[in-house]
Protein backbone atom coordinates (compact mmCIF):
# COMPACT_ATOMS: atom_id res chain seq x y z
CA UNK A 1 0.00 0.00 0.00
CA UNK A 2 1.43 3.38 -0.93
CA UNK A 3 1.81 6.00 1.74
CA UNK A 4 1.54 9.74 1.56
CA UNK A 5 4.25 12.37 2.07
CA UNK A 6 3.13 12.84 5.64
CA UNK A 7 3.14 9.12 6.31
CA UNK A 8 6.59 8.73 4.73
CA UNK A 9 7.83 11.65 6.81
CA UNK A 10 6.34 10.19 9.97
CA UNK A 11 8.05 6.86 9.28
CA UNK A 12 11.41 8.56 8.76
CA UNK A 13 11.00 10.46 12.02
CA UNK A 14 9.99 7.31 13.80
CA UNK A 15 12.96 5.33 12.48
CA UNK A 16 15.29 8.21 13.35
CA UNK A 17 14.07 8.29 16.94
CA UNK A 18 13.24 4.67 17.64
CA UNK A 19 14.48 2.54 14.76
CA UNK A 20 17.60 1.20 16.48
CA UNK A 21 15.61 0.03 19.46
CA UNK A 22 12.93 -1.61 17.38
CA UNK A 23 15.58 -3.27 15.21
CA UNK A 24 17.05 -4.91 18.32
CA UNK A 25 13.69 -6.17 19.46
CA UNK A 26 13.28 -9.93 19.56
CA UNK A 27 9.76 -10.90 18.68
CA UNK A 28 8.42 -14.16 19.97
CA UNK A 29 8.15 -17.06 17.57
CA UNK A 30 4.53 -17.16 16.58
CA UNK A 31 4.12 -20.71 15.39
CA UNK A 32 5.42 -22.68 18.32
CA UNK A 33 4.47 -20.88 21.46
CA UNK A 34 1.47 -19.08 22.86
CA UNK A 35 3.45 -17.47 25.63
CA UNK A 36 3.63 -13.72 25.33
CA UNK A 37 6.73 -11.95 26.56
CA UNK A 38 6.25 -10.71 30.07
CA UNK A 39 5.93 -6.98 30.33
CA UNK A 40 7.32 -5.65 33.52
CA UNK A 41 9.16 -2.59 34.66
CA UNK A 42 12.87 -2.36 34.77
CA UNK A 43 14.09 -3.10 31.31
CA UNK A 44 12.33 -0.49 29.26
CA UNK A 45 14.34 1.33 26.68
CA UNK A 46 13.84 5.03 27.11
CA UNK A 47 14.04 6.92 23.89
CA UNK A 48 14.30 10.67 23.70
CA UNK A 49 12.34 12.47 21.04
CA UNK A 50 13.44 16.09 20.86
CA UNK A 51 12.54 17.78 24.10
CA UNK A 52 10.14 15.01 24.83
CA UNK A 53 11.01 11.65 26.25
CA UNK A 54 8.94 8.87 24.81
CA UNK A 55 9.32 5.65 26.69
CA UNK A 56 9.09 2.51 24.65
CA UNK A 57 9.05 -0.65 26.69
CA UNK A 58 10.37 -3.19 24.27
CA UNK A 59 11.70 -5.97 26.46
CA UNK A 60 11.05 -7.61 29.73
CA UNK A 61 12.62 -8.73 32.96
CA UNK A 62 11.18 -9.79 36.25
CA UNK A 63 9.68 -7.09 38.47
CA UNK A 64 6.82 -7.03 40.90
CA UNK A 65 3.35 -6.74 39.45
CA UNK A 66 2.61 -3.96 41.93
CA UNK A 67 4.08 -1.96 44.78
CA UNK A 68 2.35 0.09 47.47
CA UNK A 69 4.58 2.21 49.67
CA UNK A 70 3.77 4.50 52.59
CA UNK A 71 6.01 7.54 52.35
CA UNK A 72 7.43 9.48 55.28
CA UNK A 73 5.16 12.47 54.60
CA UNK A 74 2.03 10.31 54.86
CA UNK A 75 1.45 9.95 51.15
CA UNK A 76 1.14 6.55 49.54
CA UNK A 77 2.75 5.63 46.24
CA UNK A 78 1.03 2.99 44.13
CA UNK A 79 2.81 1.36 41.20
CA UNK A 80 1.08 -1.20 39.00
CA UNK A 81 3.14 -2.93 36.33
CA UNK A 82 0.65 -5.57 35.30
CA UNK A 83 -3.11 -5.97 35.46
CA UNK A 84 -2.43 -9.02 37.59
CA UNK A 85 -1.08 -6.67 40.24
CA UNK A 86 -4.36 -4.83 40.75
CA UNK A 87 -5.70 -7.23 43.34
CA UNK A 88 -2.51 -7.19 45.39
CA UNK A 89 -2.34 -3.42 45.24
CA UNK A 90 -5.90 -3.16 46.53
CA UNK A 91 -5.16 -5.52 49.38
CA UNK A 92 -2.19 -3.41 50.39
CA UNK A 93 -4.17 -0.18 50.12
CA UNK A 94 -6.88 -1.62 52.34
CA UNK A 95 -4.29 -2.81 54.84
CA UNK A 96 -2.90 0.72 55.00
CA UNK A 97 -6.39 2.13 55.50
CA UNK A 98 -6.30 4.13 52.26
CA UNK A 99 -9.67 4.69 50.63
CA UNK A 100 -8.43 4.01 47.14
CA UNK A 101 -8.98 1.12 44.75
CA UNK A 102 -7.44 0.23 41.44
CA UNK A 103 -10.04 -1.06 38.97
CA UNK A 104 -9.00 -2.75 35.74
CA UNK A 105 -10.60 -1.83 32.46
CA UNK A 106 -11.15 -5.18 30.79
CA UNK A 107 -13.23 -6.74 28.09
CA UNK A 108 -16.63 -8.01 29.09
CA UNK A 109 -17.34 -5.68 32.00
CA UNK A 110 -20.59 -3.77 32.01
CA UNK A 111 -19.82 -1.01 34.51
CA UNK A 112 -18.64 2.14 32.80
CA UNK A 113 -16.47 5.03 33.84
CA UNK A 114 -19.46 7.23 33.15
CA UNK A 115 -21.41 5.57 35.94
CA UNK A 116 -18.70 6.52 38.37
CA UNK A 117 -18.47 10.11 37.30
CA UNK A 118 -19.31 12.49 40.10
CA UNK A 119 -21.45 15.51 39.46
CA UNK A 120 -18.49 17.70 40.22
CA UNK A 121 -16.25 16.88 37.33
CA UNK A 122 -13.27 18.52 39.00
CA UNK A 123 -12.96 15.30 40.94
CA UNK A 124 -11.99 13.47 37.77
CA UNK A 125 -8.26 13.35 37.52
CA UNK A 126 -6.94 12.50 34.11
CA UNK A 127 -3.52 11.01 34.22
CA UNK A 128 -0.60 11.32 33.79
CA UNK A 129 -0.83 15.08 34.32
CA UNK A 130 -0.48 16.53 37.80
CA UNK A 131 -3.74 18.33 38.40
CA UNK A 132 -4.83 17.65 41.89
CA UNK A 133 -3.75 17.86 45.45
CA UNK A 134 -5.06 14.34 45.98
CA UNK A 135 -3.02 12.39 43.51
CA UNK A 136 0.30 12.86 41.77
CA UNK A 137 1.20 10.66 38.83
CA UNK A 138 4.73 9.55 38.03
CA UNK A 139 4.82 8.34 34.46
CA UNK A 140 1.93 6.18 33.42
CA UNK A 141 2.05 3.35 35.96
CA UNK A 142 2.70 5.02 39.28
CA UNK A 143 0.81 7.57 41.33
CA UNK A 144 1.25 9.10 44.75
CA UNK A 145 -1.91 9.60 46.75
CA UNK A 146 -2.59 11.93 49.64
CA UNK A 147 -5.05 9.83 51.63
CA UNK A 148 -5.94 12.64 54.00
CA UNK A 149 -7.39 14.62 51.11
CA UNK A 150 -9.80 11.92 50.01
CA UNK A 151 -13.17 13.04 51.41
CA UNK A 152 -14.56 10.82 54.16
CA UNK A 153 -16.84 8.16 52.71
CA UNK A 154 -15.38 8.52 49.23
CA UNK A 155 -13.05 6.20 47.38
CA UNK A 156 -10.34 7.24 44.99
CA UNK A 157 -10.80 4.99 41.95
CA UNK A 158 -7.80 4.41 39.73
CA UNK A 159 -8.89 3.07 36.36
CA UNK A 160 -6.13 0.87 34.99
CA UNK A 161 -5.94 -0.22 31.37
CA UNK A 162 -3.52 -2.55 29.66
CA UNK A 163 -3.49 -2.23 25.91
CA UNK A 164 -1.10 -4.08 23.63
CA UNK A 165 1.11 -4.90 26.57
CA UNK A 166 1.35 -1.34 27.85
CA UNK A 167 -0.24 -0.67 31.21
CA UNK A 168 -1.47 2.77 32.12
CA UNK A 169 -3.29 4.25 35.08
CA UNK A 170 -5.70 6.15 32.89
CA UNK A 171 -8.06 8.01 35.16
CA UNK A 172 -8.35 8.77 38.84
CA UNK A 173 -11.64 9.89 40.28
CA UNK A 174 -13.16 10.35 43.68
CA UNK A 175 -16.28 8.25 43.88
CA UNK A 176 -18.95 7.74 46.53
CA UNK A 177 -20.67 4.38 46.57
CA UNK A 178 -19.88 0.84 45.58
CA UNK A 179 -16.83 0.44 43.41
CA UNK A 180 -17.15 -2.11 40.59
CA UNK A 181 -14.62 -4.92 40.30
CA UNK A 182 -13.85 -3.92 36.73
CA UNK A 183 -14.82 -1.37 34.13
CA UNK A 184 -15.85 -1.64 30.49
CA UNK A 185 -13.44 -0.79 27.73
CA UNK A 186 -13.97 2.88 26.91
CA UNK A 187 -15.37 3.26 23.45
CA UNK A 188 -14.58 6.31 21.47
CA UNK A 189 -17.04 8.54 19.70
CA UNK A 190 -17.20 11.87 18.02
CA UNK A 191 -17.74 13.36 21.45
CA UNK A 192 -14.70 11.65 22.83
CA UNK A 193 -14.37 9.17 25.64
CA UNK A 194 -17.83 8.11 26.63
CA UNK A 195 -16.96 8.50 30.25
CA UNK A 196 -15.76 12.05 29.96
CA UNK A 197 -18.37 14.36 28.51
Amino acid at each position, binding site marked *: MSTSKFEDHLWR*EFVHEHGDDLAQLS*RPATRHTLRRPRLVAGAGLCLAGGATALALILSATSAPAFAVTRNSNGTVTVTINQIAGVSGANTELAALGVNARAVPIVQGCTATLQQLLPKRTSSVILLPKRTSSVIYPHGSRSVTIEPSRIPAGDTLVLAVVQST*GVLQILVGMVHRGAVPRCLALPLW*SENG*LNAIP
Partner: protein
Amino acid sequence: MREGSGGSALLEFERIYRDNVGVVTSFFARRCSDPQTVADLTSETIVRAAAGFAGFDPRRGTPRAWLSGIAGHVYAQHCANTASGRDAVTRLAGLVILAPEEIDELMERIDAQRAGQELLERCAALSPLERAAVELVDLDGLTPKEAAAVLGVSRGVLRMRLSRARERLRKEHHVDEQV
Protein backbone atom coordinates in the same frame (compact mmCIF):
# COMPACT_ATOMS: atom_id res chain seq x y z
CA MET B 1 9.95 -15.97 12.68
CA ARG B 2 12.29 -13.26 13.67
CA GLU B 3 13.63 -14.37 17.00
CA GLY B 4 17.11 -13.01 17.35
CA SER B 5 17.24 -11.83 13.78
CA GLY B 6 18.40 -8.26 14.07
CA GLY B 7 16.30 -5.72 12.24
CA SER B 8 13.50 -8.08 11.30
CA ALA B 9 11.18 -6.57 13.88
CA LEU B 10 11.74 -3.18 12.32
CA LEU B 11 11.02 -4.56 8.87
CA GLU B 12 7.91 -6.29 10.11
CA PHE B 13 6.75 -3.17 11.88
CA GLU B 14 7.36 -1.12 8.75
CA ARG B 15 5.20 -3.49 6.73
CA ILE B 16 2.42 -3.15 9.28
CA TYR B 17 2.88 0.62 9.25
CA ARG B 18 2.78 0.91 5.47
CA ASP B 19 -0.28 -1.30 5.19
CA ASN B 20 -2.30 0.39 7.90
CA VAL B 21 -1.17 3.93 8.65
CA GLY B 22 -3.72 5.26 6.16
CA VAL B 23 -6.54 3.76 8.20
CA VAL B 24 -5.13 5.33 11.35
CA THR B 25 -4.73 8.75 9.73
CA SER B 26 -8.28 8.59 8.36
CA PHE B 27 -9.60 7.60 11.77
CA PHE B 28 -8.26 10.84 13.22
CA ALA B 29 -9.10 12.89 10.13
CA ARG B 30 -12.77 12.03 10.68
CA ARG B 31 -12.58 13.46 14.17
CA CYS B 32 -10.20 16.38 14.02
CA SER B 33 -10.21 19.41 11.78
CA ASP B 34 -6.64 20.42 12.60
CA PRO B 35 -3.93 18.73 10.49
CA GLN B 36 -1.36 19.03 13.26
CA THR B 37 -3.66 17.21 15.67
CA VAL B 38 -4.25 14.47 13.11
CA ALA B 39 -0.48 14.18 12.66
CA ASP B 40 0.25 14.13 16.38
CA LEU B 41 -2.41 11.55 17.20
CA THR B 42 -1.28 9.35 14.32
CA SER B 43 2.28 9.64 15.60
CA GLU B 44 1.19 8.81 19.13
CA THR B 45 -0.60 5.72 17.88
CA ILE B 46 2.47 4.48 16.03
CA VAL B 47 4.73 5.09 19.03
CA ARG B 48 2.34 3.21 21.30
CA ALA B 49 2.11 0.39 18.78
CA ALA B 50 5.90 0.13 18.74
CA ALA B 51 5.89 0.06 22.53
CA GLY B 52 3.56 -2.92 22.49
CA PHE B 53 4.99 -4.64 19.44
CA ALA B 54 6.91 -7.20 21.47
CA GLY B 55 3.61 -8.52 22.74
CA PHE B 56 1.64 -8.27 19.53
CA ASP B 57 0.52 -11.71 18.46
CA PRO B 58 -1.01 -11.79 14.96
CA ARG B 59 -2.90 -14.98 15.82
CA ARG B 60 -4.95 -12.99 18.30
CA GLY B 61 -5.94 -10.28 15.87
CA THR B 62 -4.90 -8.64 12.66
CA PRO B 63 -2.51 -5.69 12.60
CA ARG B 64 -5.33 -3.48 11.39
CA ALA B 65 -7.53 -4.42 14.31
CA TRP B 66 -4.62 -4.01 16.69
CA LEU B 67 -3.81 -0.51 15.42
CA SER B 68 -7.47 0.48 15.37
CA GLY B 69 -7.74 -0.43 19.02
CA ILE B 70 -4.69 1.63 19.89
CA ALA B 71 -6.00 4.56 17.84
CA GLY B 72 -9.27 4.38 19.74
CA HIS B 73 -7.49 4.57 23.06
CA VAL B 74 -5.29 7.42 21.86
CA TYR B 75 -8.31 9.37 20.71
CA ALA B 76 -10.22 8.66 23.91
CA GLN B 77 -7.36 9.97 25.98
CA HIS B 78 -6.95 12.97 23.71
CA CYS B 79 -10.62 13.86 24.15
CA ALA B 80 -10.51 13.30 27.87
CA ASN B 81 -7.55 15.61 28.23
CA THR B 82 -9.06 18.17 25.88
CA ALA B 83 -12.33 18.12 27.80
CA SER B 84 -10.47 18.96 30.96
CA GLY B 85 -8.67 21.84 29.30
CA ARG B 86 -5.37 20.12 28.90
CA ASP B 87 -3.41 19.47 25.77
CA ALA B 88 -3.28 15.76 25.19
CA VAL B 89 -0.49 15.90 22.69
CA THR B 90 1.89 18.17 24.52
CA ARG B 91 4.39 15.38 24.97
CA LEU B 92 4.58 14.91 21.25
CA ALA B 93 5.00 18.56 20.46
CA GLY B 94 7.82 19.01 18.00
CA LEU B 95 8.02 15.36 17.07
CA VAL B 96 6.41 15.86 13.69
CA ILE B 97 6.88 19.24 12.13
CA LEU B 98 4.68 19.37 9.09
CA ALA B 99 5.76 20.84 5.79
CA PRO B 100 3.20 23.01 3.98
CA GLU B 101 2.51 20.28 1.42
CA GLU B 102 1.95 17.80 4.23
CA ILE B 103 -0.55 20.17 5.82
CA ASP B 104 -2.31 20.43 2.48
CA GLU B 105 -2.29 16.68 2.17
CA LEU B 106 -3.79 16.21 5.61
CA MET B 107 -6.39 18.91 4.92
CA GLU B 108 -7.38 16.94 1.83
CA ARG B 109 -7.59 13.82 3.98
CA ILE B 110 -9.81 15.66 6.46
CA ASP B 111 -12.03 16.88 3.61
CA ALA B 112 -12.15 13.39 2.16
CA GLN B 113 -13.41 12.07 5.47
CA ARG B 114 -16.33 14.51 5.52
CA ALA B 115 -18.73 11.81 4.39
CA GLY B 116 -17.42 9.66 7.20
CA GLN B 117 -17.96 12.50 9.65
CA GLU B 118 -21.52 12.87 8.44
CA LEU B 119 -22.11 9.18 8.86
CA LEU B 120 -20.77 9.39 12.40
CA GLU B 121 -23.14 12.29 13.08
CA ARG B 122 -26.02 10.20 11.81
CA CYS B 123 -24.88 7.48 14.17
CA ALA B 124 -25.27 9.76 17.19
CA ALA B 125 -28.48 8.05 18.26
CA LEU B 126 -26.91 4.62 18.16
CA SER B 127 -25.32 3.01 21.14
CA PRO B 128 -21.55 3.48 21.49
CA LEU B 129 -20.97 -0.14 20.51
CA GLU B 130 -23.17 0.10 17.41
CA ARG B 131 -21.55 3.38 16.42
CA ALA B 132 -18.07 1.94 16.79
CA ALA B 133 -19.08 -1.17 14.84
CA VAL B 134 -20.41 0.88 11.95
CA GLU B 135 -17.27 2.96 11.86
CA LEU B 136 -14.81 0.11 12.07
CA VAL B 137 -16.54 -2.02 9.46
CA ASP B 138 -18.17 0.46 7.10
CA LEU B 139 -15.63 3.26 7.23
CA ASP B 140 -12.32 1.69 8.22
CA GLY B 141 -12.90 -1.48 6.26
CA LEU B 142 -12.26 -3.93 9.06
CA THR B 143 -13.91 -7.31 8.85
CA PRO B 144 -16.59 -8.03 11.46
CA LYS B 145 -14.14 -10.46 13.05
CA GLU B 146 -11.50 -7.73 13.32
CA ALA B 147 -14.02 -5.21 14.63
CA ALA B 148 -15.24 -7.69 17.22
CA ALA B 149 -11.66 -8.11 18.44
CA VAL B 150 -11.18 -4.35 18.69
CA LEU B 151 -14.40 -3.88 20.64
CA GLY B 152 -13.98 -6.89 22.86
CA VAL B 153 -17.22 -8.61 21.89
CA SER B 154 -18.02 -11.87 20.17
CA ARG B 155 -18.44 -12.01 16.42
CA GLY B 156 -22.10 -12.88 16.91
CA VAL B 157 -22.75 -9.83 19.04
CA LEU B 158 -20.84 -7.64 16.60
CA ARG B 159 -22.82 -8.92 13.61
CA MET B 160 -26.12 -8.48 15.43
CA ARG B 161 -25.32 -4.94 16.53
CA LEU B 162 -23.98 -4.01 13.13
CA SER B 163 -27.07 -5.33 11.40
CA ARG B 164 -29.32 -3.49 13.83
CA ALA B 165 -27.37 -0.26 13.39
CA ARG B 166 -27.43 -0.44 9.60
CA GLU B 167 -31.14 -1.13 9.60
CA ARG B 168 -31.78 1.82 11.86
CA LEU B 169 -29.63 4.09 9.72
CA ARG B 170 -31.45 2.91 6.61
CA LYS B 171 -34.82 3.67 8.16
CA GLU B 172 -33.75 7.09 9.33
CA HIS B 173 -32.30 7.87 5.92
CA HIS B 174 -35.57 6.78 4.32
CA VAL B 175 -37.56 9.04 6.62
CA ASP B 176 -35.22 11.94 5.88
CA GLU B 177 -35.73 11.47 2.15
CA GLN B 178 -39.50 11.41 2.54
CA VAL B 179 -39.43 14.60 4.56
